[in-house]
């Protein structure tokens, strides 16, 4: 037994349990901010310590091939840590307003532990546990606004669709188990019966359940409602962490377990990617609520990442990792601004953003930079990310897919810039907005990183290269 390799998961789980105990020990009139700061401190140290875990030598498997600790997993663990750190930073004020404060933090941390397990999963058992730990925590988090009807509606819809997809995935896993006689990804990869009917049915079920989790278009119907109804910090983490975690494990399943079938599957995946980009962007144009608009835009972003997976090359994987990183940064900025606006205006429609540049220039600037990064306008990191993705697709012969992606990102500029126009031109009752220092830290981190990685993408691409090389071996 080597417990050292799961130290991030152990730390996060213990922290989650300790926070609930600390909450009981604190006098009830004290604020619960100290819990948030404790979590932030521990998670930041953990994220920094993971930099020393990158290695050039061959990555070892642990616990009878169930757990794989390679650079790819370490990169995604850091990504999820960053997403949760940013979420806690901008949700400190929201947490003050809810009844169950320590439970909110520990649910966030349990979801984080689930995502980290998912990133290292090398066995369907590990993957199932990680996925359920993450999803069940998210069901609870989605229903956290006790005085909001929409929150409970969103949570129950998410629960029904989520557990339906879990059941479908488990059934698929059981069929695969019947043909491969093992849950291990490497055993499934070497299975001589991988093209038997049972195995093909199993693969299709697992992949369609993964599409549910990634909210790829024909399986996306839960995501706009859930994103709109959930409390805004939770929506942010759903968009950032849950989607990145699903992408990370989807790539692992596709390239480590179903690799012999990938040649037949990748052309189908490219169709899903195209449908996702077209549908997500067109539906986003029609939205009046910015939270819902961001939900549809995140569907389109998942489509862009699928383009990189279709390429199935070093360039493609690198592009997906790069894009996932800056997607988290851009979403953190946009949702942080959304949290403040919702707090002051009690709504997230387009008119609630009117005149934001007057009442708070910093917020308006961060929102503009984040949205431009999502649209892929040159000085921001989104441009570099899309460039990597589409170049990889063209090199692999998917010229039409890159073309669809290019047209769709041009169309997406329309609804992103509509927000910017409302913020900078319309002037309606400017309210006095003051920003807490923790939120300012979060938005400054996201904005600076977005701009800096846009100008010097090579620093981030060193890291993504390291992760992608060991992933494909």
């Amino acid at each position: 037994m080597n417990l050292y390799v799961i130290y991030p998961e152990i730390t996060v789980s213990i922290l989650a349990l300790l926070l609930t105990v600390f909450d009981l020990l604190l006098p009830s009139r004290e604020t619960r901010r100290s819990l948030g700061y404790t979590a932030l401190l521990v998670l930041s140290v953990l994220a920094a310590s993971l930099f020393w875990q990158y290695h050039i030598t061959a990555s070892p498997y642990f616990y009878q091939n169930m757990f794989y600790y390679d650079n790819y997993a370490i990169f995604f663990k850091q990504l999820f840590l960053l997403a949760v750190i940013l979420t806690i930073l901008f949700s400190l004020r929201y947490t003050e307003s809810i009844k169950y404060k320590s439970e909110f933090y520990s649910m966030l941390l349990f979801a984080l532990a689930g995502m980290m397990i998912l990133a290292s999963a090398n066995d369907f058992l590990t993957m199932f546990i990680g996925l359920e730990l993450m999803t069940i925590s998210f069901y609870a988090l989605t229903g956290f606004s006790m005085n909001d009807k929409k929150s409970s509606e969103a949570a129950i819809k998410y629960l029904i669709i989520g557990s339906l997809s879990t059941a479908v995935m488990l059934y698929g896993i059981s069929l695969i188990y019947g043909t491969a006689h093992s849950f291990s990804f490497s055993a499934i990869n070497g299975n001589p019966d991988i093209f038997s009917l049972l195995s093909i049915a199993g693969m299709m079920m697992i992949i369609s359940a993964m599409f549910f989790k990634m909210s790829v278009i024909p399986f996306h119907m839960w995501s706009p409602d859930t994103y709109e109804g959930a409390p805004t910090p939770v929506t942010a983490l759903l968009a950032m962490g849950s989607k990145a975690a699903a992408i990370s494990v989807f790539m692992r399943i596709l390239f480590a377990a179903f690799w012999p079938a990938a040649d037949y599957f990748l052309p189908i995946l490219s169709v899903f990617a195209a449908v996702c980009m077209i549908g997500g962007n067109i539906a986003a144009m029609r939205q009046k609520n910015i939270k819902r608009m961001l939900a549809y835009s995140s569907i389109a972003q998942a489509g862009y990442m699928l383009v990189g997976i279709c390429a199935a090359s070093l360039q493609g994987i690198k592009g997906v990792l790069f894009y996932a990183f800056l997607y988290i940064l851009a979403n953190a900025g946009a949702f942080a601004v959304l949290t403040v606006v919702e707090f002051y205006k009690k709504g997230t429609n387009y008119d609630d953003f009117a005149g934001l540049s007057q009442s708070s220039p910093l917020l308006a600037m961060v929102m503009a930079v984040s949205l431009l990064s999502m649209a892929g306008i040159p000085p921001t990191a989104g441009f570099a990310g899309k460039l990597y993705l589409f170049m990889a697709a063209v090199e692999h012969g998917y010229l039409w897919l890159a073309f669809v992606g290019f047209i769709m990102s041009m169309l997406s500029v329309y609804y992103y810039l509509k927000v910017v126009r409302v913020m900078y031109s319309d002037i309606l009752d400017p309210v006095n907005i003051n920003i807490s220092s923790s939120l300012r830290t979060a938005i400054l981190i996201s904005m600076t990183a977005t701009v800096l990685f846009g100008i010097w993408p090579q620093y981030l691409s060193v890291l993504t290269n390291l992760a992608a090389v060991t992933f494909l071996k």
Partner: protein
Amino acid sequence: MIIGITHFLIISAALFCIGLYGILIKRNLFSILMCIELMLNAVNINLAAFNYFLPMPDLSGQVMILFSVAVAAAEVAVGLALIFRVYRDFRTVNIDKLNSMKG
């Protein structure tokens, strides 16, 4: 007649389909939760049958059943809590009445 693996697989497929059909046509949230349970239990039968009848190197299928039962219980616990919240907020457990968000 000898009961073999096929019979178990047919029963489990039937249970899975009944559960799926129930989720699609039932409007009561409790019934939907029960149908989800049915689907998850179909998987357990499948895993146990494969583990018993096929030459497996280990008992990993049965281990998976333990985890799947535990996860199903956790899911139902959260699900019931959420249904109570929905009932408190909307005074109904009919899923068609939960339509405050559109678009």
